[in-house]
Structures are given as structure tokens and as C-alpha cells.
């Protein structure tokens, strides 16, 4: 799990262009000002590439929450 979180954190740092960014399972789109619809898609695509998985459209909204994101990745990549 923490492995997934570290990887997501790296993706976030890359996309938001902030080297110091730290996320937790409680982080949501409300906590990061730059996390809008555009960056959300960028995050999703980066995760899809990293884990070679594909998310359904109906799952994207729930993933504006890091905890939910980690959960879905672990389900899909296992």
C-alpha cells in the first residue's frame, strides 16, 4: 500500500511541479488548489501508464480522493 502511495506522490510532484508535495490517504482534490479537471486526467493517465491498468469513466470522480485512488489501484493491479 505505502508503495502505491509513494508512486502516486511522485506522479503528483511531477504533475503539480512541486518537489516538496506530500500526500496522505486523506488528501482530496479540495486540499490541492491546482487539482482541477485537467490535472485530474493527467494524474489518471500517468497512473494508468505506470500500472498498465485502465479506469472506467464512472470511477474517475471517486478518485479525487487519494485513499480511494490507492484502493482502486490495488484492486485493479492485483
Amino acid at each position, binding site marked *: 500500500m505505502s508503495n502505491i502511495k509513494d508512486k502516486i506522490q511522485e506522479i503528483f510532484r511531477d504533475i503539480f511541479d512541486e518537489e516538496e508535495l506530500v500526500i496522505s490517504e486523506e488528501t482530496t482534490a479540495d486540499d490541492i488548489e491546482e487539482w482541477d479537471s485537467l490535472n485530474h*486526467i*493527467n494524474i489518471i493517465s500517468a497512473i494508468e501508464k505506470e500500472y498498465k491498468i485502465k479506469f472506467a*469513466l*464512472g470511477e474517475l470522480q471517486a478518485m479525487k480522493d487519494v485513499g480511494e485512488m490507492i484502493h482502486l489501484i490495488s484492486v485493479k493491479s492485483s
Partner: protein
Amino acid sequence: MLFNSYTFIFFFLPVAFLGYFLLNYNKKVEGAKVWLVASSLFFYSWWNVIYLPLILLSVLLNYKLSRVLIEDEEGSLFTKKQYFVVGLVLNISLLVYFKYMDFFITNVNFISGENFELWHLALPLAISFFTLQQIAFLVDSYEGLVKEKNFLDYSLFVTFFPQLIAGPIVHHQEMMPQFSRLKNKLFNYKNIAAGVFIFSIGLFKKVVIADSFSKWVHHGFDHSQTLTLIEGWVTSLAYTFQIYFDFSGYTDMAIGAALLFNIKLPQNFNSPYKATGIIDYWQRWHMTLTIFITTYVYTPILRSFSKITFFKAMFATFAAMFISGLWHGAGWTFIVWGSLHGFALMINHYWHKSKRKMSIFLAWFITFNFVNITGIFFRAENLSQAKDILQAMFTGNIMLPIQLESRLVQLKTYGVTFGSLMGTSRDFALATILIVISFFISLVLKNSNEKIEDFKPSFLVLLLIVPMFIYSIYNMQDVSEFLYFNF
């Protein structure tokens, strides 16, 4: 049947509510669902029963299609993808047929110089909303997120009366677990209290605030060619507040009515006029539509490109907003409105990307004025009417209330005139006061959704809500439709 009618408040809602819980209380769980679907269809048919077959057909077709999408492919004549595409085409065609035929014919006539007759089809109530909801459902079924195998449950999902006519747009995944939870089949006094509370707030917003603005908006738009500068601003601001209190009032009533049945509908407004950017605005205004458009329009467009770049994302943003404009109405005014918002979103994204900063007040000021000005296109019957109002606002003659004439008479040398604005002096004064109050409510106060989060029944709340409710009921004589019923 309108939420703001005596029939709904004193007959339909209590009967539907009591019937539902009595049946559940007697362990007739299926019967209670049948009751709720039947009530909802009765509610829908109250306007015009001729569209009842249409919604039934749409529900049945989408249910059948989704069954094919979730079942094994073996032995099937077509692939799932083919069924899925047929489903999308059917839903969109139905909407296009009823909503866009005349717009299409008018434009063909204009371009070709022909004179094909218009069809004058009345827009079936709620079609724009139940079409979106069912498209989302088909996509989710196709992608394996939902598996609905009960026709009664599916009918309840689409027709549940609080959200049937104008949203909030709900997802199968968030609704059905709530309907099946055993606890939700029992009387819940806290939910009833909270439901009545938010319903009353919504009723007040609609009947007292929005309907007061309605008169001045009508007056302003009807006299668009003769408006003076101040009248232009009063008219556009009156509309900006009318549509907010109308639609968020409707939504509060929907959320309140659903809470009586222990169903929590999603939030649809989060103080949109506090927004400090147009991206921010769309995350606060008609939120369930924004989520729908982002998920099922913007994302598929963007994903269809092999590599996502900023430029392509901007294209997808504009395209999504353009489609959203057209969804709101078949007319060039809506296309202009959607395009302007599309451009603004692009500028806002570019601004973020280049990491520029702006003072909060300036950001709010630009955003609010942009929303107010584009709102004119949203309301206007045609582009030239919108142009008239814009001209009044920016280059109109300055006329001040006649009461000020004796004190400011020297201004006459600068071309200022004196007279009665907005028809009568009383109307102008009331409109101005209500605009100031509306600014205060929508910029300073907590919104109804925040209030419901920390809602605790108390005598103080009762003292506040009972007069609001009675005053609304008293003002309900002229029943007026909600603006969003036309979309």
C-alpha cells in the same frame, strides 16, 4: 406538479410519504417501491399525460439494453460495443428529435433560402435530465461498474420524483444502495426534520426571492430596446440572482423531499457567486452537471487523443462547454453562452499553468461580472435582444430616479436625465434593495448545504423556519414554473 404548489405540498408529498412508510412498516418492501414509482409517474403525468409513454419507453429500452451489456456475450448476434453504440444513438436521437428539430430546420432555411415548415414539437418535461442520467447508466453498465437486474429498481432510479424533472443528476451507484438499506425503510425523525428544514429554505428562495425578481427580469428583457444604463444593470443582476435562487431553491426542495424518504441526493450548489475564477464557478454551480460533462464528455474526448497535451486539453474543454451550451437549449444564444464560458475556462487554465497570481477581490469581481454578462445570452430570446441589453449597460443613457432631481439638477448639463426606472419608482427601489440583499445572502451567508451538514433541530430553527414557510405559502398564489424546466 410543481414543488411550489398547494397540490404538491399538501396532497401529493404527504400521501406519497405516508404510503411509502406504511407499506414498508407492513413489510411490503416491494409494494413500497411500486408505490414510489407509481407516485413518481403520477407526479410526472400531472403536467401532461401524453409524455408518460415516452418516459416509460425510454426507461424500458435503456433497461433492456443494459441487461444485454452486463450479460455474457456468447450466442449474441451483435457485440456489446455495438449494443452500447445503439444505446447512445437511441438516447441522443430521442433528445435531438424533440429538442433540436426546429432549430435545425430554421438554420437550414436560413442557409438554403428554403422555407421548410417547423414541427413545433413541445419539449417533453425532464427529457434533457433523464437522457443524461440514463446515458451515464449505460456507460457504467458497459464498463462493468453497475449490474442492475431488477426492472422495478431501475425504474425507481430514473423516476424517483424529487430528482426526476431537473436533477440533481444522480448515479445508479450512489442511489440504489440507499434504497435497499434496511434502515432507510424506517421513519427517521432527524431526516424528516432536516428535510422539512431544507425544503422550506428552498421554497422561500423560489417563491419569495426568485419570483420577485422574475417580474423585473421580464420587464427589462421585454423593454430591452429602451433600457437606460442603470436599468440594464438592474435587469442583468436581477436575472443573475433570479436564476440562482430559482435553481438552487428547486434543488433544496428536491434534496428536502428526498430526505423525507431517507435518500440523500448529491449537492448541486456550493455558493457559486463566491467563486474567484471560472473553473471555481463551475465547481460550485450545477455541480452534478459539471461532473457529468467532465466525466462523460470531456474525458472521452481527451482520452481519444494518443498523447494528452495542454493544447488538446483546452480543445476538449471548449468542446465540452460548447456541448453543454447546446444541451441547455436549442438556440444561438446558448451556443454563444457555452462558447464564452469555454473561452473563459481556457483562459483560466492558461492563467493557472503560467502560475500568475491575482488579488482575491479582483478575481471575484471579474468572475462575477463575467457570469452576470454571459447570463444575458442565457436568458435572451435572441441575439439582438442580448445585444440591446449589453448596449444599455455599457453605452446607455444615464437616467437617475426622479426623486433625486431637485438635489442633483446640475447633472443635467452632462446629459443625465431623471425619470422613473424599471416602470415605477417603487419597482426600482424594491429591485435595488433585493439585489443588495441577494448579494449579502449569496456572498456572506452559509449556503443551505452547509446548514444541513450541521443541522440540529431546535426551537430557534423552528422559530426561523415556520415564518419562512408560512410566508412562502402565503405568496404562492401565482404558481410559477422553474427556469430549469425548459432545459
